[in-house]
């Protein structure tokens, strides 16, 4: 094991008794060194998966500055000096004094910094500017040994860690507590800490910008105006959707259903076939149709399966119609999908009995949409 890791471990072990505040469900608030901070614990309703103690892959925990081959060894030593030095401290303050001035690495001061960066991350995780501190946290905690009682959920990397971070951040509420934990700029010198820990293996279910976010490590870097970052993010999203064809990003139309107390809206561009649209509508309006067929009692409602609902919608009870550019009500399914979304202005789920005029088509339609 490398000397610095050893050093860190030793320190950590001697620290088992150091104050670690339990914020209830196992999420301990820690400052960037992994030490708990008593003074500002007031949150976290997150229950973390049990990965607290496992998954410590020491090999992959090597703190590295910069990309492989570009390391500045000095800094690393300072880093671990810092670690070993600081773990003893009573971490009452997020800003730790430089005990001996040796450690010139700049992680110390970063504890409270980048508050916005972090909450931005959490709030706008899907935005391009979502810097993910998760990765940094992981790296740090790996170095400091998972047995430390101060290990923080949000530092726990595992296949779920990305999600943990999000969860913990969101439930932590007060950004203050969150920021203290994050060893934000611990890894500032290591903007692509992609080695080993791979956020991609997490089940962050966000869109691909989260994968992008995963690579963003540092607040305010690269120095691109936030206006520009946001605009480009939107542009690229739109361009992907538009796919070279003229048109706008979203095509929302109202959907009404006979007997439903309120309408819904759907974005037609998110579907590419009639089938997708109809299943989405089924889901959306199932709560209303439950009432119709559940007249046998509450139990029926639970049991109502989707297929039954489908029958309801497409079999006999309801037909799907739309209002076109000219204001006429048409049966959904006659024209090619692309043409349909160009002309559809509004959708309506009508009772078959009302659609008498269109009746001859009903059976064919149910074939189409099924």
């Amino acid at each position: 094991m490398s000397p610095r890791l050893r050093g860190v471990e030793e320190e950590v072990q001697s620290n088992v008794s150091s104050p670690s505040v339990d914020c209830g469900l196992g999420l301990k608030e820690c400052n960037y060194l992994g030490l708990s901070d008593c003074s500002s614990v007031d949150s976290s309703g997150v229950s973390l998966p049990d990965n607290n103690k496992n998954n410590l892959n020491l090999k992959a925990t090597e703190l590295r500055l910069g990309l492989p081959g570009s390391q500045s060894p000095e800094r690393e030593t300072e880093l671990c000096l810092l670690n070993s030095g600081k773990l003893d401290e009573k971490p009452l303050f997020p800003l730790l004094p430089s005990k001996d001035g040796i450690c010139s690495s700049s992680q110390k001061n970063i504890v409270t910094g980048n508050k916005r960066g972090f909450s931005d991350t959490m709030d706008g995780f899907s935005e391009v500017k979502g810097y993910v501190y998760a990765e940094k946290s992981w790296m740090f905690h790996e170095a400091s040994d998972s047995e430390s009682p101060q290990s923080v959920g949000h530092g726990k990397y595992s296949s779920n860690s990305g999600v943990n971070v999000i969860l913990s951040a969101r439930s932590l509420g007060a950004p203050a507590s969150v920021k203290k934990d994050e060893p934000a700029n611990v890894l500032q010198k290591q903007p692509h800490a992609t080695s080993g820990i791979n956020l991609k293996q997490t089940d962050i279910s966000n869109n691909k910008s989260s994968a992008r976010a995963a690579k963003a490590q540092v607040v305010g870097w690269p120095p691109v105006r936030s206006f520009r970052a946001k605009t480009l993010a939107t542009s690229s999203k739109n361009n992907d959707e538009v796919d070279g064809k003229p048109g706008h990003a979203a095509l929302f139309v109202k959907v009404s259903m006979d007997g439903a107390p309120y309408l819904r809206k759907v974005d037609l561009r998110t579907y590419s076939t009639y089938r997708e649209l109809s299943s989405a509508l089924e889901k959306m309006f199932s709560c209303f149709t439950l009432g119709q067929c559940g007249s046998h009692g509450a139990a029926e409602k639970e049991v109502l399966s989707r297929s039954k609902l489908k029958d309801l919608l497409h079999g006999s009870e309801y037909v799907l119609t739309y209002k076109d550019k000219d204001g006429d009500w048409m049966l959904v399914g006659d024209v090619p999908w692309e043409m349909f979304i160009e002309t559809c202005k509004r959708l309506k789920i009508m009772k078959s009995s009302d659609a008498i005029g269109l009746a001859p088509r009903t059976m064919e339609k149910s074939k189409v949409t099924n």
Partner: protein
Amino acid sequence: MNYFPDEVLEHVFDFITSHKDRNSVSLVCKSWYKIEKYSRQRVFIGNCYSISPERLIARFPGLKSLTLKGKPHFADFNLVPDDWGGFLYPWIKAMARSRIGLEELRLKRMVVSDESLELLSKSFPNFKSLVLVSCEGFTTDGLAAVAANCRLLRELDLQENEVEDHRGHWLSCFPENCTSLVLLNFACLKGEINLASLERLVARSPNLKSLRLNRAVPFDTLQRLLMRAPQLVDLGTGSYVHDPYSEAYNKLKAAIQSCNSIRSLSGFLEVAPRCMSAVYPVCENLTFLNLSYAAGLQSIELTKLIQYCRKLQRLWILDCIGDKGLGVVASTCKELQELRVFPSDPFDAGNAAVTEEGLVLVSAGCPKLNSLLYFCQQMTNAALITVAKNCTNFIRFRLCILDPIKPDPVTNQPLDEGFGAIVRSCKGLKRLSLSGLLTDQVFYYIGMHAKQLEMLSIAFAGDSDKGMLYVLNGCKKLRKLEIRDCPFGDAALLEDMGKYETMRSLWMSSCEVTLGACKTLAKKMPSLNVEIINESEQTEFNLEDRQKVDKMYLYRTVVGHRKDAPEFVWLL
């Protein structure tokens, strides 16, 4: 001693337009001070907290044009929390009260409320020009007030502001008899626009020279607008998406061809690449081309377009142009003075499409290059040395390697020598931003050679206090220094405290500076405001002097502590 009556002197002073020169003039003698004071119309305030509105008004009662800058530069990159400050309202209130005849207001990084816009629109009957850059805090309601009440409005220029779009019909608020518009830029607005109002407005503005639309303005409206305003000099398209085989497209082509005054082109936030050929006719006269938001254009389309732009002087582009594309720029745009290459995917450094090669090509082909902003994947010392040899005229040189401490990938060395070559060769360099792996050595070079340097931005660089000291001692003209994540500490900060009085401001974040040192500095230098931005829940009293501060911002001021600092800003 005056040999001339005051009026003559005043007339002479009219010819002196530079702020620096006018400041010097006012120092000559009491009567010159007085004459200059009453005749001064344009004032530039680089830091809104360096002086108060009341003192400004007392000093220059004849004020007509005011430029104000608020938040520190790093606020652009989310390093400064919201509510830090930079509020416009007190300035408007004071000027309104004193009946200043304000005609022009240019703001950068200020917080502008709807209230202040409304007050502005009602208090200055001669108000002509509003330029907002990177501001926030207002909505389209504020714009509606400006549109409705500023009868003589000539310029409304909104650049990259965060505007809450209430989708109100602010454009319709321009009265029917408003025909004075010369510049209208609302490209940064996100919401829908009343297109009919826009067309009518453009139709009744014969002096309109600059029109920059937002994304909500569709293709066919663009065509109609161009028909109405063939005199346009600067055009920013809205959505530029259409079927290139349609009638509307042909109409646009024709409309563009009648606009033979267009010298500046931007926009294309949404773009259908196949429609770009309509724009080729204006390319040959373009001097400024801004495609830095046109994420839909690939290198091949970009280069096709650029091949027509022989007279281009300023080019803002995305890095998807690639090194080869920059080669096309180099061989086509011989008049190029300013190049900005922005990252199309800022947070995915592995994909940055330009490297040192593109820069070298441009430097070789464009000898007039004097201003550079370049986001790239990597840089080498050899490349920088070559660039320095090719282009000695750099005034602004900002290099951003997406991986902030990346060394020269060929030699694995820090980039000290490369930047050293730049500062040695470009004697007129005024602004420099560094990135990549850098040691104290680069600062030695900067202190030694960058004698005209006024603004320096440093991130993740240096080894010790010496680095910062080289700069503070050597760069005599330094005005703004901003540092993040560098190992500079108290010794460097406190070595020459008087230096900060010669500068506008100093920003240090995530460095080694302690609270105690900041307190010392604040105490010894009453002419400086030393602000600590502290985003934890710690109150000032809990923090020990030995502890490092996360963000420190200091600036010279004649009015002491500001009264509007939020809780998280400690004024020492």
